[in-house]
Every structure is written in C-alpha cells, then in structure tokens.
C-alpha cells in the first residue's frame, strides 16, 4: 500500500483523538466565552484517573466511564464556586486563573504519583494489530477512531436534535436572550462546562494506553487543543471535528514528506488558516 495512504489513515486516527480532546474546549468557548487554559489539566486528570483506577484493579471499560464522570463532577464544582465568578472579567483574567488552576493540578499529580511517567496497557481485547495487506494498525487506535466517530454523532444529535442542544446553540448566540426566556442559564453553563471537561478527560483516558501518563502531558495536550479549535473555528463543534482531522492528517503526512517539520507544520497549518480565514474554517465572524 502506498505510504501516503497509510499516513492518511494514520492521520485520521490521530485526528479523531485530537477532536475528542478539543471539542469540549470549543463548546465551552462558544457558549461561555470563557478561555479555559485548564482544559489540558482535565485531560491530565482523565489520564491519571485511568492509570489510578487500573492500579486499583478496575478494568479499562470502567475507567472509560468513571474517569470522565469524576472529572466532569470536579469541573462542575470548579465552575460553580470559582469560574462562574470571573466570566464577566476580561479574557486575560480567564487565562490567569485557569493557568493557575492547571499548574496547581499538575503539582498535585506530581505530589501524588511522582514526576516519572507510567505505562497504561490497553484492554486485552484491543491489544495487537489489524493487518490489511501492507497496512498494520493497532487495534486500540481503531477503537479510538470508533469512539471519536461515536462522540461526533452523539454531540451532533444532541446539539441539532434536542431541546438542550437548541438552548446551547441559542446561548452561544446570545446568553442574555436565553436568560430572558426564563431558562436557568447558570445551570446550563455548569452542565456545558462539566461536559467540556469530561470530554477532555475522556481524551486523557483514551490517550493513556497510546502514550502513557506523565505529569506534563496536560500542557502538550492544551497546545494541540488550541490549534485544533483555532483551525476549526472557536465555538464550532463541526469545526473541532474538521480541525482535529486536518491537524492529524497534516502531522501524519508531514512525517513522510518532511519528518522534522511534522510537529511544526500543524502550527504552520494554523497560521495559514488564520491568514485565509481569520475565524477558522467553520468559525463565524
């Protein structure tokens, strides 16, 4: 099989993980206009949650459920008692506070689990590879593609086909209008924030068997998430999907075309999109 076709498929796999990582960040910004630099820390907590629950003897499938749930609950508390108080402040303050929270969480992880990385094994059923002619691909990554696709379908169905989705979409246009309609916008904000954090945690759980866990993985994830959101368009769910896939495919393709620039090119892609479409591919002015 042509190496570029192999890289395309691999890029879709990587891109799907990036989508799961970034979609929460995009939705939080879209509705709350809140710049959440703690998003990478939620990814970190999800990954370490997976590691810790596995150490306690729980199988991977439970960690996949419990990790995002626990982090989502923590995020809801943080939103209720801290972030809610700063929504009206300038974005610089959002950054300051969420960076602080991210640093604290990172140090907590170092204190609790040490500065060294740890390995997390994929579940037994997903160990090994699928072989398709010359193409060899880890079963676990195929599973990640499946989870990403399922997430995209569920989020699309909720946003487009339910009352809650309609409120979220309306809220992203005008929160004042939604409030005037008598809806409890604070509760909606809390739910959306918790959902955004839970998707980051889900990405962390999914990433743990691929790259292991270490205390600094949140910072790396945050930069990729921002690139995806900026490329796709801030606040756009579909943008996160397109951005994630584009970034994953660019990174993978460049591994063959110009390997040293594979990482750099995702930022070049971001700069190019910003030049051509300042609001991102699917972002609105």
């Amino acid at each position, binding site marked *: 099989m042509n190496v570029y076709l192999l890289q395309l498929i691999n890029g879709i796999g990587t891109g799907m993980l990036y989508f799961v990582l970034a979609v929460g960040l995009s939705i939080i910004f879209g509705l709350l206009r809140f710049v959440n630099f703690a998003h990478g820390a939620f990814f970190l907590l999800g990954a370490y949650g997976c590691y810790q629950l596995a150490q306690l003897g729980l199988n991977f499938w439970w960690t996949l459920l419990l990790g995002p749930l626990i982090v989502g609950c923590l995020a809801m508390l943080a939103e209720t008692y801290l972030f809610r108080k700063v929504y009206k402040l300038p974005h610089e303050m959002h950054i300051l506070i969420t960076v602080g929270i991210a640093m604290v969480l990172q140090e907590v992880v170092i204190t609790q689990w040490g500065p060294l990385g740890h390995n997390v094994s994929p579940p037994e059923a997903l160990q090994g590879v699928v072989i398709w002619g010359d193409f060899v691909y880890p079963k676990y990554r195929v599973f990640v593609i499946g989870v990403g696709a399922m997430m995209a379908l569920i989020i699309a169905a909720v946003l487009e086909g339910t009352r809650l989705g309609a409120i979220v979409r309306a809220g992203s246009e005008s929160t004042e209008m939604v409030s005037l309609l008598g809806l409890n916008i604070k509760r909606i904000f809390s739910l959306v924030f918790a959902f955004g954090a839970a998707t980051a945690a889900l990405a962390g759980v999914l990433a743990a068997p691929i790259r292991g866990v270490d205390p600094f993985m949140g910072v790396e994830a945050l930069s990729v998430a921002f690139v995806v959101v900026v490329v796709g368009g801030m606040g756009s769910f579909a943008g996160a999907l397109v951005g994630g896939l584009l970034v994953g495919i660019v990174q993978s393709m460049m591994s*063959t075309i110009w390997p040293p620039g594979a990482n750099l090119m995702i930022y070049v892609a971001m700069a190019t999109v910003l030049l051509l479409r300042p609001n991102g591919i699917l972002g609105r002015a």
Partner: protein
Amino acid sequence: MTNRRDFLKLTAAAGLTATPLFSAAQTEDLVFACPTAMSGNFSAIGKFSEIGVRYAIEQQGTLLGKKLRYRMIDTEAKPATAVRRVQEAMQQHNIKFFPGALLSAESLAMSKEIDRAGGVFLTNAGADEITGIECNRSTFRWAVPTYGIIQGSVRPAADLLPKAKRWYTITPQYVFGDDLLKNAKNLFKEKGIEHVGNSYHSLTEKEFSGHLTNAIATKADVLLLLNYGAQASDTLRQAVSFGMKRNMTIVVAVASGLEQFESLGADICEDIYFGAVYWHTIDTNLNKKLVSDVREKYKITPNYSLAAPFICTRLLMDGIIKANSLEPAAVIASLEGMKFEGLTGMEEVRKEDHQVLRDFYLLKGKAKAKMRDKDDYAEILNAGRSFLSAAEAGCKMA
C-alpha cells in the same frame, strides 16, 4: 490570623536565620553544589541526583579536616538559569566544586562559566563537545560520548543479529541526535548494513505514529531509536503497539536508566535491546556496595540519575584527597590521569580531554516471568569501552 505585619516579621526572621547558616557553611564547611534540574519536566533527575550526592557526602563525612556539605542548584533545565545560579554559588558562597550535572545544553553553558571562574565541574552530559571541541581544563565527564554509545550498543547488537541487514533510524534533530546518527551511519558502512531510511523529529514531538508508519513501509529488519528519555519511551511504546516486535528487532541506542524501564513496564521492554551507561546489576565491588546501601537506606534501586552524580561526587572527593588541597588547580592536576575503582570496574580519567574511560553496556529486556525481582528488567549482554582519541574528538586543551 496572620496579618500583613506579622507576615513581614516572620519573613524577616526567616531571612535572618537562614543567612548565618550559610555563612557558617562558608567558613567551616566544604560545600559541593550539584547543578541539575529540580523542577519542571526533568525534575525526576534532580530527585535521584540529590540522593546520589547525599549518599556520597554522608559516606565520606569530612575531607581535609572540613565537614562536607552539599547543596542542590535547581537549573530548571535552562542553560541561562543554570549559568546564573552557578555564578551566584561561586561569587556569593565561594563554592568551587560542582559534581553531578546531567543535561547537555546546560552542562555546556556551565562548563564555560565554571572554567572562567576557576572551579571544577564533573558532568554526565552526553554532548560530544563536552570533552570534544568545547573541552576545558575545569570540566570532566563520566558519561560516554556518542561514538562510544554507538560502538557499545549498535556494534554488539549487529553482531548478535547477523541476518539483519536493513536498519531504519528515528533521530531527534539536535546535536546529540545528529552525532549518534553520524556514528551509526559510519558503523553501518563498516558492517555492510543498508540504512533504509531515517525519520528526524523535533524535540517537542510526542506523536510518533507517522514516523513508525514510514519505518513499517520500508520493511526494515531493525528499528534503531536514537532519541532519548521520554521521547524514546513514547516511540518505543507506540512501536510496540504497532506490532513492530513481530517482524522487526528494536534497538534503543541509549536508555535513560531504570526509571525508563519502570515507566514502560516489562511487557514493552521484553526482547528490546538497550544501550546503557549504567545498570544496577553491573558486577563490580563499588556498584554492589552502592546498590546494597541505597536499597537499605532509601528503599530504592539506584538508577543512572542517582549513580552518575554519586560517582562524580566520589571522584571529586578522591581528587581532593589525592591533591591534599582544596585549590581547584591542584585538584584538576590530581584528577588528570587518575585510575580508580569505579562503578563499571577500573576507570581512568584521560588527561588529554578529561574524559573518563569506562565501560558501556548492551542490555536486553527480559520477559516478566523471568524477572528475579521488581527491578530485574534486563540482562547485560555486552560490556566494553570505545573512545575516540582526544585529538579525534577535537579537544585542544588550553
């Protein structure tokens, strides 16, 4: 509740108490300073280094009638910070002896500064320049340069795999990676090995699946990883998940130590070849004592980040004892050409470039079922030493 005034009082009191403590150390004690990363991404290095230095210092106790003390200097893995803090240590606290640094970029920067200010620096950095074109009178190195790493890992691995004639490399694009690749290519040529491809990657890379896809497409016999530390772990973990153990042999040119095996786990490390500067089962008297003492006292098994600062501190103390002086020039002169029982056996400080001549190891990962204890991840397959001459390495000592 503490108010602002109380807080200021407490802070002032703490400051007053701390200052005389260090002044006392200046006049009565002999202080070694270990400049290494204690915070940030490389903080694990600092944690183990501190134990290595502490063990060496406590074991010795006093030197030339002075009580031995040590302090850790947090370089934050930043060359500029490292240089600034070393300057402070030399100018404000009159510290002259600096054992135990590990990272290349900051070691190169500190090496120049310590030489300019007339101190003594013992490092374990991998960059060839340390005892090559940037060598200087004040700097000594216990770790092995890239030529020795490739000769100690790739050569014996190639000998063990005579049918493996197609090798693919993955290389970090910076000086250390480039030097490893250059030496590997020279060896491939000598051995009649076909170098079927190389993937360079940046130092910020975490996702290696694209590079591994390239390697799979070449149908190479061997995947040689020339990256180090967390990047080597990420590449190896992903290579194993891509099923590359099935039809390729994987060789890691230089492992970062026991902590790397711990973070990867036995299942991933099984049947992988690793080059190693240090391994805790090296069969020498000094290493056996180090392992036994550290296990008893600190309940851990020494890794490279612990053993290397230990031996640098030990070597520095031996130099001072031999010189019977605390003058850096006398200590440097006594270290030059010194032969000593080191962690790897009889070791020697080469006078011409201050490189310590010692063994380098090739390990092979064991199956989990064959591990005799929780740290028995690998067996030593080969030990040997290969060094370019000082002239070939480019060292012109001033």
